[in-house]
């Protein structure tokens, strides 16, 4: 198969189109605007629709509307924009609509800066909007993985009728790497949602979609259904990568960009005969608690690295359940830590 040199943002956009995405609504924000620009160029070529909206608030609601018709739809944004979308995401989760979001995250809080960061983890995995709901959150660490997870994102959204978030940082969005693109999916082969979509009543009773029930018992019933679904997702969709975990005494943990940096740290340590391994969560929700717990039984300590003040480390602590000490190293504000500084921090812990 032929590989192509592509920028991360463009690779995600092209992969989405090949997954059958024909509708994109979006509002420009650095460092992900290339996704919108790519969609503006490419979607009309495949009979799709691109619309630049007046705001992220309008964007997320257009995504909601398009998702009501059962067609594959996505948007992309970066951290402050993702914050603005939270209300709509809560509605979309409640209405159980399939759609895909890409948050190419940057430093915060507030306007922050435009450099890569991982400080949207809480917002992405713990809710963000109001109510008891979850997105499925996928975190690629290479561009090939970004391409593959974009395909998976649309399929999971369809399978569970749930919004799926691709959480990458500005590094993934802006870097270039060779990727192998999947073939173009045949739109007519995509899952049929005609039993619930809003398409006009022709020959049937009206379909109604709403994240709304004025009766508390009715609303509790809806929530029970959501929770049942989340349980199924937790059972079936946990994904992670293990690298040199066999016989590891020290377990390094990081996702996305940090995952790839930690790989070279592990290589370096293994080169010095220090038994380190890497555990890289790919689904941040559902978080791979169980497998991590198993591995943690046999290690001397766990070392979590994030480009944040420490958000995923809370999930690691929950997973490890005190079976091993958990240490944390983080950089904030859009600073990407170097392998050397991570090594230094690690060596300090070992002493």
């Amino acid at each position, binding site marked *: 198969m032929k590989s192509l040199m592509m920028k991360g943002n463009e690779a995600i956009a092209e992969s989405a189109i090949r997954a059958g995405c024909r*509708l994109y609504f979006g509002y420009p924000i650095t460092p992900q605007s290339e996704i919108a620009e790519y969609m503006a160029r490419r979607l009309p070529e495949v009979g799709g629709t691109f619309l630049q*909206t*007046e705001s992220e608030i*309008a964007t997320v609601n*257009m995504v*909601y509307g*398009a*998702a*009501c018709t059962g067609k594959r739809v996505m948007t992309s944004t970066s951290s402050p924009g993702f914050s603005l979308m939270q209300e709509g995401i809560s509605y979309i989760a409640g209405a159980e609509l399939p759609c895909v979001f890409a948050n190419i995250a940057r430093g915060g809080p507030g306007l922050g800066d435009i450099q890569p960061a991982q400080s949207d983890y809480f917002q992405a995995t713990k809710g963000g909007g109001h109510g008891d709901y979850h997105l499925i959150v996928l975190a690629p660490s290479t561009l090939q993985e970004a391409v593959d997870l974009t395909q998976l994102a649309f399929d999971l959204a369809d399978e569970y009728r749930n919004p799926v978030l691709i959480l990458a940082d500005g590094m993934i969005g802006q870097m270039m790497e060779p990727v192998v693109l999947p073939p173009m999916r045949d739109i007519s082969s995509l899952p049929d949602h005609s039993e619930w979509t809003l398409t006009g*009543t022709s020959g049937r009773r009206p379909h109604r979609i709403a994240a709304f029930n004025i009766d508390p018992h009715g609303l509790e019933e809806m929530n029970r259904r959501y929770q049942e679904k989340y349980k199924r997702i937790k059972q079936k969709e946990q994904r992670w990568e293990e690298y040199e975990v066999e016989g590891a005494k020290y377990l390094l943990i990081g996702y996305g960009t940090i995952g790839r940096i930690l790989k070279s740290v592990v290589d370096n340590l293994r080169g010095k005969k220090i038994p380190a391994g890497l555990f890289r969560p790919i689904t941040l929700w559902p978080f791979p608690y169980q497998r991590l717990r198993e591995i943690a039984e046999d290690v001397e300590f766990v070392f979590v690295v994030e480009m944040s003040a420490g958000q995923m480390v809370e999930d690691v602590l929950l997973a490890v359940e005190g079976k091993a000490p958990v240490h944390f190293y983080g950089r904030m504000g859009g600073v990407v830590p170097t392998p050397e500084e991570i090594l230094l921090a690690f060596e300090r812990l070992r002493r």
Partner: protein
Amino acid sequence: MDSKVIFKRPRSLSDKEFTYCPGCHHGIVHRLIAEAIDELNIQDKTIMVAPVGCSVFAYEFFNVDGTVAPHGRALAVATGIKRAMSDRVVFTYQGDGDLASIGIAETIHTANRGEKLTTIFINNAVYGMTGGQMAPTTLLGQRTTTTPRGRSVENDGYPFHVSELLSTIPGVAYLARVTVSSPRDIQSAKESIKKAFLAQMKGVGFGLVEVLSICPTNWGMSPVEAQRWLLENMVKEFPPKIFVDRVGES
């Protein structure tokens, strides 16, 4: 004796009982929309977007596919539906709090894109469901729960004129302000609603009908007093008028 049905429930209205207060104009306007949909023969390809507010249940009152948008976002949701399925007829039903306050950006931009959508805009100069607070359209001097001394320019600014504002936007194909306070007004309101649907069906652009309505509950009046108050006060501030009609030009 043979009997003949000369008046019945429109096909496009469901059996569900309205949840509106006695005398409220929502009921009349719902019926007019349903009749318009029946007469245009578009029931099976119409999709509605209900708002937040008293009419949040509207998606259950019509025999068409429907959804509920977040507060103010009905026109963004409708845009998403329409862009996904351009051959369907999509309409929103929104109150003044929804369309003119929290959702004014969506309203203006949807109109400006000339989105092929229809909006029925219920202007009763007050927030209904939340218990009678000031709306952007509340009249000067009008008492509400959040303007207990009457709306003042100094504190609250002026009544917001949505139709006048939208009339300057080229994407608007049909725009009218109507009342439903007399049988004759009801007839012409229905003609306007049909025209607003035709504006999207013919692909000319965005259609909106502003309906001056009463809220007897929050105005603290009987329905009859409320009708009188509307005719004596609201129509002075918001004169009924056809602002734009480009439907015929297509």
